[in-house]
Protein backbone atom coordinates (compact mmCIF):
# COMPACT_ATOMS: atom_id res chain seq x y z
CA UNK A 1 0.00 0.00 0.00
CA UNK A 2 2.98 2.30 0.24
CA UNK A 3 3.74 2.48 -3.45
CA UNK A 4 3.61 5.86 -5.12
CA UNK A 5 1.42 4.40 -7.83
CA UNK A 6 -1.58 5.28 -5.67
CA UNK A 7 -0.88 8.99 -5.79
CA UNK A 8 -3.40 9.68 -8.55
CA UNK A 9 -6.05 8.48 -6.07
CA UNK A 10 -5.55 11.68 -4.10
CA UNK A 11 -6.60 13.76 -7.11
CA UNK A 12 -10.39 13.86 -6.49
CA UNK A 13 -10.08 14.98 -2.89
CA UNK A 14 -7.20 17.39 -3.54
CA UNK A 15 -9.23 19.01 -6.30
CA UNK A 16 -12.39 19.04 -4.18
CA UNK A 17 -10.74 20.63 -1.16
CA UNK A 18 -9.00 23.22 -3.32
CA UNK A 19 -12.24 24.29 -5.01
CA UNK A 20 -14.65 24.01 -2.08
CA UNK A 21 -12.47 24.69 0.97
CA UNK A 22 -9.44 26.80 0.02
CA UNK A 23 -10.85 29.02 -2.75
CA UNK A 24 -14.04 29.89 -0.78
CA UNK A 25 -11.90 31.02 2.17
CA UNK A 26 -9.87 33.19 -0.20
CA UNK A 27 -13.15 34.67 -1.44
CA UNK A 28 -14.00 35.81 2.10
CA UNK A 29 -10.65 37.59 2.29
CA UNK A 30 -11.16 39.11 -1.15
CA UNK A 31 -14.62 40.46 -0.31
CA UNK A 32 -13.61 41.46 3.21
CA UNK A 33 -10.65 43.51 2.03
CA UNK A 34 -12.39 45.33 -0.83
CA UNK A 35 -15.31 47.74 -1.10
CA UNK A 36 -18.27 47.57 -3.48
CA UNK A 37 -16.19 48.94 -6.37
CA UNK A 38 -13.48 46.33 -5.81
CA UNK A 39 -10.89 48.77 -4.39
CA UNK A 40 -8.75 47.69 -1.46
CA UNK A 41 -9.98 48.85 1.95
CA UNK A 42 -9.67 47.93 5.61
CA UNK A 43 -12.98 49.58 6.47
CA UNK A 44 -14.92 46.32 6.58
CA UNK A 45 -12.56 45.01 9.23
CA UNK A 46 -12.26 48.18 11.31
CA UNK A 47 -16.08 48.28 11.25
CA UNK A 48 -15.91 45.81 14.14
CA UNK A 49 -14.92 48.75 16.36
CA UNK A 50 -18.22 50.60 15.85
CA UNK A 51 -20.30 50.61 19.00
CA UNK A 52 -23.01 48.29 17.68
CA UNK A 53 -20.63 45.65 16.30
CA UNK A 54 -18.24 45.77 19.23
CA UNK A 55 -21.16 45.28 21.61
CA UNK A 56 -22.34 42.23 19.65
CA UNK A 57 -18.83 40.75 19.61
CA UNK A 58 -18.32 41.37 23.34
CA UNK A 59 -21.64 39.72 24.16
CA UNK A 60 -20.83 36.76 21.87
CA UNK A 61 -17.44 36.23 23.51
CA UNK A 62 -18.95 36.49 26.99
CA UNK A 63 -21.84 34.09 26.35
CA UNK A 64 -19.70 31.56 24.48
CA UNK A 65 -17.03 31.56 27.21
CA UNK A 66 -19.67 30.99 29.88
CA UNK A 67 -21.33 28.19 27.95
CA UNK A 68 -18.02 26.53 27.09
CA UNK A 69 -17.07 26.57 30.76
CA UNK A 70 -20.48 25.22 31.80
CA UNK A 71 -20.26 22.47 29.16
CA UNK A 72 -16.83 21.50 30.48
CA UNK A 73 -17.96 21.42 34.11
CA UNK A 74 -21.03 19.34 33.22
CA UNK A 75 -19.26 17.03 30.79
CA UNK A 76 -16.06 16.12 32.65
CA UNK A 77 -17.75 14.29 35.55
CA UNK A 78 -20.17 12.71 33.08
CA UNK A 79 -17.35 11.47 30.85
CA UNK A 80 -15.55 10.06 33.92
CA UNK A 81 -18.65 8.24 35.11
CA UNK A 82 -19.31 6.84 31.63
CA UNK A 83 -15.68 5.69 31.33
CA UNK A 84 -15.81 3.96 34.72
CA UNK A 85 -19.04 2.18 33.88
CA UNK A 86 -16.95 -0.03 31.60
CA UNK A 87 -19.70 -0.37 29.05
CA UNK A 88 -18.37 -2.86 26.53
CA UNK A 89 -19.93 -0.93 23.67
CA UNK A 90 -18.28 2.42 23.18
CA UNK A 91 -20.61 2.77 20.23
CA UNK A 92 -23.63 2.84 22.54
CA UNK A 93 -22.40 5.92 24.40
CA UNK A 94 -21.70 7.74 21.15
CA UNK A 95 -25.16 6.78 19.86
CA UNK A 96 -26.95 8.24 22.85
CA UNK A 97 -25.39 11.62 22.19
CA UNK A 98 -25.79 11.52 18.41
CA UNK A 99 -29.40 10.30 18.54
CA UNK A 100 -30.99 13.69 19.40
CA UNK A 101 -29.58 15.07 16.14
CA UNK A 102 -32.16 13.02 14.28
CA UNK A 103 -34.74 15.43 15.56
CA UNK A 104 -34.25 18.76 13.86
CA UNK A 105 -31.90 21.12 15.69
CA UNK A 106 -34.20 24.13 15.20
CA UNK A 107 -37.22 22.27 16.57
CA UNK A 108 -35.26 20.99 19.58
CA UNK A 109 -34.12 24.53 20.34
CA UNK A 110 -37.65 25.88 19.87
CA UNK A 111 -38.93 23.25 22.29
CA UNK A 112 -37.02 25.10 25.00
CA UNK A 113 -39.43 28.02 24.46
CA UNK A 114 -42.29 25.73 25.44
CA UNK A 115 -40.31 24.48 28.40
CA UNK A 116 -39.09 27.88 29.62
CA UNK A 117 -42.11 30.15 29.00
CA UNK A 118 -43.80 32.04 31.84
CA UNK A 119 -46.57 29.46 31.94
CA UNK A 120 -44.38 26.77 30.39
CA UNK A 121 -43.68 23.24 31.49
CA UNK A 122 -40.82 23.97 33.86
CA UNK A 123 -42.63 26.81 35.62
CA UNK A 124 -45.77 24.67 35.98
CA UNK A 125 -43.69 22.01 37.73
CA UNK A 126 -41.99 24.64 39.90
CA UNK A 127 -45.36 26.13 40.88
CA UNK A 128 -46.68 22.69 41.70
CA UNK A 129 -43.67 22.15 43.99
CA UNK A 130 -44.21 25.65 45.50
CA UNK A 131 -40.82 26.79 44.21
CA UNK A 132 -40.09 30.24 42.75
CA UNK A 133 -40.60 30.46 38.98
CA UNK A 134 -37.80 31.17 36.54
CA UNK A 135 -38.24 33.75 33.81
CA UNK A 136 -35.25 33.48 31.55
CA UNK A 137 -36.86 33.19 28.12
CA UNK A 138 -35.73 36.01 25.77
CA UNK A 139 -32.76 36.82 28.01
CA UNK A 140 -29.05 36.03 27.58
CA UNK A 141 -29.53 33.21 30.13
CA UNK A 142 -31.83 31.38 27.73
CA UNK A 143 -29.18 31.75 25.01
CA UNK A 144 -26.56 30.23 27.31
CA UNK A 145 -28.93 27.36 28.07
CA UNK A 146 -29.51 26.82 24.35
CA UNK A 147 -25.77 26.79 23.70
CA UNK A 148 -25.05 24.33 26.50
CA UNK A 149 -27.92 22.12 25.36
CA UNK A 150 -26.87 22.07 21.69
CA UNK A 151 -23.11 21.76 22.13
CA UNK A 152 -22.80 19.52 25.21
CA UNK A 153 -22.36 16.35 23.07
CA UNK A 154 -19.38 17.99 21.33
CA UNK A 155 -17.73 18.30 24.74
CA UNK A 156 -18.72 14.88 26.12
CA UNK A 157 -17.57 12.76 23.18
CA UNK A 158 -13.93 14.00 22.90
CA UNK A 159 -13.57 13.85 26.72
CA UNK A 160 -15.03 10.34 26.82
CA UNK A 161 -12.72 9.21 23.99
CA UNK A 162 -9.64 10.69 25.65
CA UNK A 163 -10.53 9.29 29.11
CA UNK A 164 -11.28 5.80 27.86
CA UNK A 165 -7.89 5.67 26.11
CA UNK A 166 -6.01 6.10 29.41
CA UNK A 167 -4.22 2.86 30.28
CA UNK A 168 -5.67 1.52 33.51
CA UNK A 169 -2.24 0.24 34.53
CA UNK A 170 -0.99 3.81 34.75
CA UNK A 171 -3.76 4.66 37.21
CA UNK A 172 -3.15 1.47 39.18
CA UNK A 173 0.57 2.20 39.28
CA UNK A 174 -0.14 5.65 40.73
CA UNK A 175 -2.35 4.07 43.39
CA UNK A 176 0.31 1.44 44.19
CA UNK A 177 2.85 4.19 44.64
CA UNK A 178 0.64 5.73 47.28
CA UNK A 179 -1.28 8.43 45.42
CA UNK A 180 -4.76 9.15 46.78
CA UNK A 181 -7.77 9.90 44.57
CA UNK A 182 -7.07 13.62 44.37
CA UNK A 183 -3.42 13.13 43.43
CA UNK A 184 -4.27 10.45 40.87
CA UNK A 185 -6.79 12.79 39.31
CA UNK A 186 -4.62 15.89 39.11
CA UNK A 187 -1.31 14.17 38.31
CA UNK A 188 -2.48 11.35 36.00
CA UNK A 189 -6.05 11.53 34.69
CA UNK A 190 -6.33 15.27 34.05
CA UNK A 191 -2.97 15.66 32.21
CA UNK A 192 -3.63 12.57 30.08
CA UNK A 193 -7.04 13.87 29.05
CA UNK A 194 -5.68 17.24 27.82
CA UNK A 195 -6.11 16.36 24.10
CA UNK A 196 -9.79 15.64 24.77
CA UNK A 197 -10.20 18.81 26.83
CA UNK A 198 -8.67 21.04 24.14
CA UNK A 199 -10.70 19.37 21.41
CA UNK A 200 -13.91 19.67 23.45
CA UNK A 201 -13.28 23.31 24.33
CA UNK A 202 -12.78 24.29 20.70
CA UNK A 203 -15.66 22.12 19.47
CA UNK A 204 -17.99 24.08 21.80
CA UNK A 205 -16.42 27.54 21.76
CA UNK A 206 -16.40 28.06 17.96
CA UNK A 207 -20.06 27.21 17.25
CA UNK A 208 -21.18 29.08 20.39
CA UNK A 209 -19.20 32.20 19.43
CA UNK A 210 -20.58 32.25 15.90
CA UNK A 211 -24.19 31.11 16.34
CA UNK A 212 -27.03 33.27 15.13
CA UNK A 213 -29.79 30.66 15.31
CA UNK A 214 -29.85 30.05 19.06
CA UNK A 215 -29.87 33.76 19.81
CA UNK A 216 -32.70 34.45 17.37
CA UNK A 217 -34.80 31.49 18.64
CA UNK A 218 -34.30 31.93 22.38
CA UNK A 219 -33.16 35.54 22.70
CA UNK A 220 -36.38 37.05 21.39
CA UNK A 221 -34.65 38.69 18.37
CA UNK A 222 -33.67 41.72 20.49
CA UNK A 223 -30.30 40.34 21.51
CA UNK A 224 -27.80 40.56 18.67
CA UNK A 225 -24.73 38.34 18.65
CA UNK A 226 -21.94 38.82 16.12
CA UNK A 227 -23.38 35.89 14.15
CA UNK A 228 -26.71 37.71 13.84
CA UNK A 229 -24.95 40.83 12.58
CA UNK A 230 -23.08 38.86 9.89
CA UNK A 231 -26.21 36.92 8.92
CA UNK A 232 -28.14 40.19 8.48
CA UNK A 233 -25.40 41.70 6.33
CA UNK A 234 -25.69 38.74 3.98
CA UNK A 235 -29.38 37.89 3.95
CA UNK A 236 -31.01 41.30 4.50
CA UNK A 237 -28.59 44.16 3.80
CA UNK A 238 -26.79 42.29 1.00
CA UNK A 239 -23.58 44.00 2.08
CA UNK A 240 -21.28 41.06 1.40
CA UNK A 241 -18.12 43.15 1.84
CA UNK A 242 -19.01 44.20 5.38
CA UNK A 243 -20.26 40.69 6.22
CA UNK A 244 -17.00 39.18 4.95
CA UNK A 245 -14.91 41.75 6.84
CA UNK A 246 -16.65 40.88 10.11
CA UNK A 247 -16.20 37.16 9.30
CA UNK A 248 -12.45 37.74 8.99
CA UNK A 249 -12.49 39.12 12.53
CA UNK A 250 -14.30 35.97 13.68
CA UNK A 251 -11.78 33.82 11.85
CA UNK A 252 -8.99 35.24 14.00
CA UNK A 253 -10.62 33.50 16.98
CA UNK A 254 -11.20 30.34 14.98
CA UNK A 255 -7.57 30.21 13.79
CA UNK A 256 -6.30 30.69 17.36
CA UNK A 257 -8.50 27.74 18.27
CA UNK A 258 -7.11 25.62 15.43
CA UNK A 259 -3.55 26.38 16.51
CA UNK A 260 -4.38 25.37 20.08
CA UNK A 261 -5.82 22.03 18.89
CA UNK A 262 -2.82 21.43 16.63
CA UNK A 263 -0.37 22.08 19.45
CA UNK A 264 -2.11 20.09 22.19
CA UNK A 265 -3.67 17.31 20.14
CA UNK A 266 -1.06 16.28 17.59
CA UNK A 267 -2.31 12.74 17.01
CA UNK A 268 -5.99 13.59 16.94
CA UNK A 269 -6.45 11.62 20.16
CA UNK A 270 -9.20 13.86 21.37
CA UNK A 271 -11.20 13.53 18.22
CA UNK A 272 -14.97 13.34 18.48
CA UNK A 273 -15.41 10.07 16.60
Amino acid at each position, binding site marked *: *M*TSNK*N*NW*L*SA*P*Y*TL*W*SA*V*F*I*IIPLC*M*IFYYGLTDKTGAFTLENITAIATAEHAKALRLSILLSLISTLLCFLLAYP*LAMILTNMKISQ*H*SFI*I*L*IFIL*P*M*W*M*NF*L*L*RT*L*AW*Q*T*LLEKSGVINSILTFLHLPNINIINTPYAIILGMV*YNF*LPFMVLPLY*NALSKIDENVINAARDLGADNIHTFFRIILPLSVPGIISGL*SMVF*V*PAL*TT*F*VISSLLGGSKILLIGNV*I*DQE*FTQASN*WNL*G*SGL*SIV*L*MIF*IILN*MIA*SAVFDKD*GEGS*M*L
Partner: protein
Amino acid sequence: MRNAAKKIYITLIFLFLYAPIGTLMVLSFNASRTRAKWGGFTFKWYVELFQNDDILRALGNTLLIALVSSITAAFIGTIACIAMNGMKKRTRTIMMGVTNIPMLNADIVTGISLMLLFISFGFRFGLGTILLSHITFNIPYVILSVMPRMKQLNPSTYEAALDLGASPVTAFFKVVFPDLLPGILSGFLMAFTMSLDDFIITHFTKGAGVDTLSTKIYTEVRKGIKPEMYALSTIIFATVLVLLILVNLSPENRSEKIFKEN
Protein backbone atom coordinates in the same frame (compact mmCIF):
# COMPACT_ATOMS: atom_id res chain seq x y z
CA MET B 1 -24.14 6.38 48.14
CA ARG B 2 -21.54 7.42 45.59
CA ASN B 3 -23.15 5.15 43.03
CA ALA B 4 -26.54 6.68 43.70
CA ALA B 5 -25.11 10.16 43.19
CA LYS B 6 -23.58 9.07 39.89
CA LYS B 7 -26.87 7.60 38.72
CA ILE B 8 -28.77 10.75 39.63
CA TYR B 9 -26.20 12.86 37.78
CA ILE B 10 -26.45 10.78 34.60
CA THR B 11 -30.25 10.79 34.80
CA LEU B 12 -30.34 14.59 35.13
CA ILE B 13 -28.06 15.06 32.12
CA PHE B 14 -30.19 12.75 30.02
CA LEU B 15 -33.34 14.48 31.16
CA PHE B 16 -31.73 17.73 30.01
CA LEU B 17 -30.75 16.26 26.62
CA TYR B 18 -34.02 14.50 25.93
CA ALA B 19 -36.59 16.88 27.53
CA PRO B 20 -37.01 18.94 24.32
CA ILE B 21 -37.48 15.75 22.32
CA GLY B 22 -40.18 14.56 24.70
CA THR B 23 -41.80 18.00 24.48
CA LEU B 24 -41.92 17.86 20.68
CA MET B 25 -43.43 14.37 20.78
CA VAL B 26 -46.16 15.53 23.17
CA LEU B 27 -46.82 18.60 20.98
CA SER B 28 -47.35 16.36 17.94
CA PHE B 29 -50.48 14.96 19.67
CA ASN B 30 -51.72 18.38 20.82
CA ALA B 31 -55.12 19.25 19.32
CA SER B 32 -54.54 22.98 19.90
CA ARG B 33 -52.69 24.78 17.12
CA THR B 34 -50.54 26.88 19.44
CA ARG B 35 -47.83 25.19 21.39
CA ALA B 36 -48.62 27.27 24.45
CA LYS B 37 -51.64 25.27 25.61
CA TRP B 38 -52.81 21.69 25.64
CA GLY B 39 -56.03 21.19 23.67
CA GLY B 40 -56.53 17.46 24.04
CA PHE B 41 -55.13 14.39 22.35
CA THR B 42 -55.33 14.01 18.59
CA PHE B 43 -53.84 12.14 15.66
CA LYS B 44 -54.98 14.71 13.12
CA TRP B 45 -51.51 16.26 12.52
CA TYR B 46 -50.25 12.86 11.45
CA VAL B 47 -53.07 12.63 8.90
CA GLU B 48 -52.63 16.20 7.69
CA LEU B 49 -48.88 15.71 7.39
CA PHE B 50 -49.39 13.37 4.46
CA GLN B 51 -51.61 15.92 2.70
CA ASN B 52 -49.13 18.75 3.16
CA ASP B 53 -47.18 18.82 -0.11
CA ASP B 54 -44.83 21.59 1.05
CA ILE B 55 -43.57 19.60 4.01
CA LEU B 56 -43.35 16.37 2.03
CA ARG B 57 -41.32 18.14 -0.68
CA ALA B 58 -38.96 19.57 1.93
CA LEU B 59 -38.64 16.09 3.45
CA GLY B 60 -37.86 14.66 0.02
CA ASN B 61 -35.16 17.31 -0.56
CA THR B 62 -33.67 16.72 2.89
CA LEU B 63 -33.44 12.95 2.45
CA LEU B 64 -32.15 13.22 -1.12
CA ILE B 65 -29.42 15.68 -0.12
CA ALA B 66 -28.43 13.66 2.94
CA LEU B 67 -28.27 10.39 1.00
CA VAL B 68 -26.46 11.64 -2.11
CA SER B 69 -24.04 13.84 -0.18
CA SER B 70 -23.09 11.15 2.35
CA ILE B 71 -22.61 8.45 -0.31
CA THR B 72 -20.48 10.80 -2.43
CA ALA B 73 -18.52 11.86 0.65
CA ALA B 74 -17.98 8.20 1.64
CA PHE B 75 -16.63 7.50 -1.83
CA ILE B 76 -14.30 10.53 -2.12
CA GLY B 77 -13.23 10.27 1.52
CA THR B 78 -12.32 6.58 1.32
CA ILE B 79 -10.29 7.08 -1.87
CA ALA B 80 -8.56 10.04 -0.21
CA CYS B 81 -7.65 7.88 2.81
CA ILE B 82 -6.11 5.19 0.58
CA ALA B 83 -4.13 7.87 -1.23
CA MET B 84 -3.03 9.60 1.96
CA ASN B 85 -1.82 6.31 3.44
CA GLY B 86 0.80 6.08 0.71
CA MET B 87 1.94 9.67 1.04
CA LYS B 88 4.98 11.13 2.69
CA LYS B 89 4.28 12.23 6.23
CA ARG B 90 4.60 15.91 5.35
CA THR B 91 2.07 15.83 2.51
CA ARG B 92 -0.28 13.77 4.65
CA THR B 93 -0.08 16.29 7.50
CA ILE B 94 -1.02 19.09 5.11
CA MET B 95 -3.94 17.07 3.71
CA MET B 96 -5.21 16.27 7.20
CA GLY B 97 -4.86 19.94 8.11
CA VAL B 98 -7.07 20.92 5.18
CA THR B 99 -9.52 18.15 6.16
CA ASN B 100 -9.80 19.67 9.62
CA ILE B 101 -10.76 23.11 8.30
CA PRO B 102 -14.49 22.40 7.76
CA MET B 103 -14.60 20.54 11.11
CA LEU B 104 -13.05 23.35 13.15
CA ASN B 105 -14.32 26.30 11.15
CA ALA B 106 -17.58 27.96 12.12
CA ASP B 107 -20.58 26.83 10.06
CA ILE B 108 -21.48 30.44 9.34
CA VAL B 109 -18.03 31.09 7.84
CA THR B 110 -18.15 27.86 5.80
CA GLY B 111 -21.64 28.77 4.58
CA ILE B 112 -20.71 32.33 3.64
CA SER B 113 -17.49 31.26 1.92
CA LEU B 114 -19.36 28.74 -0.24
CA MET B 115 -22.08 31.30 -0.99
CA LEU B 116 -19.44 33.79 -2.20
CA LEU B 117 -17.82 31.05 -4.30
CA PHE B 118 -21.12 30.16 -5.95
CA ILE B 119 -21.96 33.82 -6.60
CA SER B 120 -18.53 34.64 -8.05
CA PHE B 121 -18.48 31.66 -10.40
CA GLY B 122 -22.08 32.06 -11.50
CA PHE B 123 -23.51 28.85 -10.06
CA ARG B 124 -27.30 28.66 -10.07
CA PHE B 125 -28.50 28.42 -6.48
CA GLY B 126 -30.69 25.40 -5.84
CA LEU B 127 -30.44 21.74 -4.88
CA GLY B 128 -27.08 21.47 -6.66
CA THR B 129 -25.36 24.13 -4.57
CA ILE B 130 -26.76 22.64 -1.35
CA LEU B 131 -25.48 19.23 -2.43
CA LEU B 132 -21.96 20.50 -3.21
CA SER B 133 -21.82 22.24 0.18
CA HIS B 134 -23.02 19.18 2.07
CA ILE B 135 -20.50 16.91 0.34
CA THR B 136 -17.79 19.40 1.36
CA PHE B 137 -18.60 19.32 5.06
CA ASN B 138 -19.35 15.56 5.02
CA ILE B 139 -16.01 14.36 3.58
CA PRO B 140 -14.06 15.14 6.80
CA TYR B 141 -16.39 12.91 8.86
CA VAL B 142 -15.63 10.00 6.53
CA ILE B 143 -11.88 10.65 6.48
CA LEU B 144 -11.72 10.97 10.26
CA SER B 145 -13.51 7.61 10.72
CA VAL B 146 -11.65 5.71 7.99
CA MET B 147 -8.12 7.02 8.68
CA PRO B 148 -7.71 5.31 12.10
CA ARG B 149 -8.74 1.97 10.51
CA MET B 150 -6.24 2.57 7.74
CA LYS B 151 -3.46 2.97 10.29
CA GLN B 152 -4.42 -0.30 11.99
CA LEU B 153 -4.15 -2.26 8.73
CA ASN B 154 -1.36 -4.77 8.47
CA PRO B 155 0.34 -4.01 5.10
CA SER B 156 1.70 -7.58 4.99
CA THR B 157 -1.74 -9.07 4.31
CA TYR B 158 -2.09 -6.93 1.17
CA GLU B 159 1.42 -7.85 0.05
CA ALA B 160 0.71 -11.51 0.76
CA ALA B 161 -2.36 -11.34 -1.48
CA LEU B 162 -0.24 -9.84 -4.25
CA ASP B 163 2.42 -12.53 -3.78
CA LEU B 164 -0.27 -15.19 -4.04
CA GLY B 165 -1.20 -13.84 -7.46
CA ALA B 166 -4.10 -11.47 -6.78
CA SER B 167 -4.27 -8.35 -8.90
CA PRO B 168 -3.99 -5.08 -6.92
CA VAL B 169 -7.71 -4.46 -7.39
CA THR B 170 -8.73 -7.95 -6.23
CA ALA B 171 -6.29 -7.76 -3.34
CA PHE B 172 -7.76 -4.41 -2.32
CA PHE B 173 -11.37 -5.58 -2.38
CA LYS B 174 -10.68 -8.98 -0.77
CA VAL B 175 -8.17 -7.93 1.87
CA VAL B 176 -8.15 -4.20 2.58
CA PHE B 177 -11.74 -3.15 1.94
CA PRO B 178 -13.42 -5.50 4.46
CA ASP B 179 -11.18 -4.05 7.19
CA LEU B 180 -12.05 -0.49 6.20
CA LEU B 181 -15.78 -1.12 5.86
CA PRO B 182 -16.76 -0.46 9.50
CA GLY B 183 -14.96 2.88 9.36
CA ILE B 184 -16.59 3.77 6.07
CA LEU B 185 -20.03 2.86 7.44
CA SER B 186 -19.64 4.87 10.62
CA GLY B 187 -18.32 7.82 8.60
CA PHE B 188 -21.28 7.51 6.25
CA LEU B 189 -23.75 7.45 9.17
CA MET B 190 -22.12 10.48 10.81
CA ALA B 191 -22.19 12.33 7.48
CA PHE B 192 -25.83 11.42 6.90
CA THR B 193 -26.82 12.60 10.38
CA MET B 194 -24.88 15.88 10.06
CA SER B 195 -26.38 16.57 6.64
CA LEU B 196 -29.88 15.86 7.93
CA ASP B 197 -29.45 18.18 10.92
CA ASP B 198 -27.67 21.00 9.10
CA PHE B 199 -29.33 24.38 8.95
CA ILE B 200 -26.67 27.10 8.80
CA ILE B 201 -24.75 26.01 5.69
CA THR B 202 -27.97 25.18 3.81
CA HIS B 203 -29.35 28.61 4.81
CA PHE B 204 -26.54 30.37 2.92
CA THR B 205 -26.25 28.05 -0.07
CA LYS B 206 -29.89 27.34 -0.96
CA GLY B 207 -31.70 29.18 -3.70
CA ALA B 208 -35.12 30.79 -3.48
CA GLY B 209 -37.94 28.28 -3.68
CA VAL B 210 -35.85 25.28 -2.61
CA ASP B 211 -36.32 24.24 1.00
CA THR B 212 -35.06 21.51 3.26
CA LEU B 213 -36.86 20.74 6.52
CA SER B 214 -34.44 22.98 8.44
CA THR B 215 -34.83 26.05 6.26
CA LYS B 216 -38.59 25.52 6.12
CA ILE B 217 -38.80 25.43 9.91
CA TYR B 218 -36.67 28.58 10.14
CA THR B 219 -39.01 30.55 7.88
CA GLU B 220 -42.00 29.25 9.85
CA VAL B 221 -40.61 30.33 13.23
CA ARG B 222 -42.08 33.83 13.05
CA LYS B 223 -45.59 32.78 12.03
CA GLY B 224 -45.62 29.70 14.22
CA ILE B 225 -44.51 26.17 13.45
CA LYS B 226 -47.12 23.97 11.80
CA PRO B 227 -47.94 21.05 14.14
CA GLU B 228 -47.46 18.69 11.18
CA MET B 229 -43.76 19.43 11.56
CA TYR B 230 -43.83 18.00 15.11
CA ALA B 231 -45.61 14.91 13.80
CA LEU B 232 -43.00 14.44 11.09
CA SER B 233 -40.02 14.78 13.43
CA THR B 234 -41.67 12.40 15.89
CA ILE B 235 -42.03 9.82 13.10
CA ILE B 236 -38.39 10.28 12.02
CA PHE B 237 -37.08 10.05 15.56
CA ALA B 238 -39.22 7.02 16.44
CA THR B 239 -38.14 5.22 13.25
CA VAL B 240 -34.46 5.75 14.00
CA LEU B 241 -34.95 4.71 17.61
CA VAL B 242 -36.74 1.48 16.66
CA LEU B 243 -34.09 0.67 14.03
CA LEU B 244 -31.32 1.19 16.58
CA ILE B 245 -33.03 -0.98 19.18
CA LEU B 246 -33.54 -3.74 16.61
CA VAL B 247 -29.92 -3.58 15.52
CA ASN B 248 -28.75 -3.59 19.14
CA LEU B 249 -30.93 -6.56 20.05
CA SER B 250 -29.77 -8.69 17.13
CA PRO B 251 -27.51 -11.47 18.39
CA GLU B 252 -24.31 -10.61 16.55
CA ASN B 253 -24.61 -6.99 17.68
CA ARG B 254 -24.08 -5.29 14.40
CA SER B 255 -24.31 -1.80 15.80
CA GLU B 256 -20.98 -2.40 17.45
CA LYS B 257 -19.50 -2.85 14.03
CA ILE B 258 -21.33 0.05 12.48
CA PHE B 259 -20.74 2.65 15.14
CA LYS B 260 -17.51 1.10 16.34
CA GLU B 261 -15.43 3.74 17.98
CA ASN B 262 -12.15 3.59 16.13
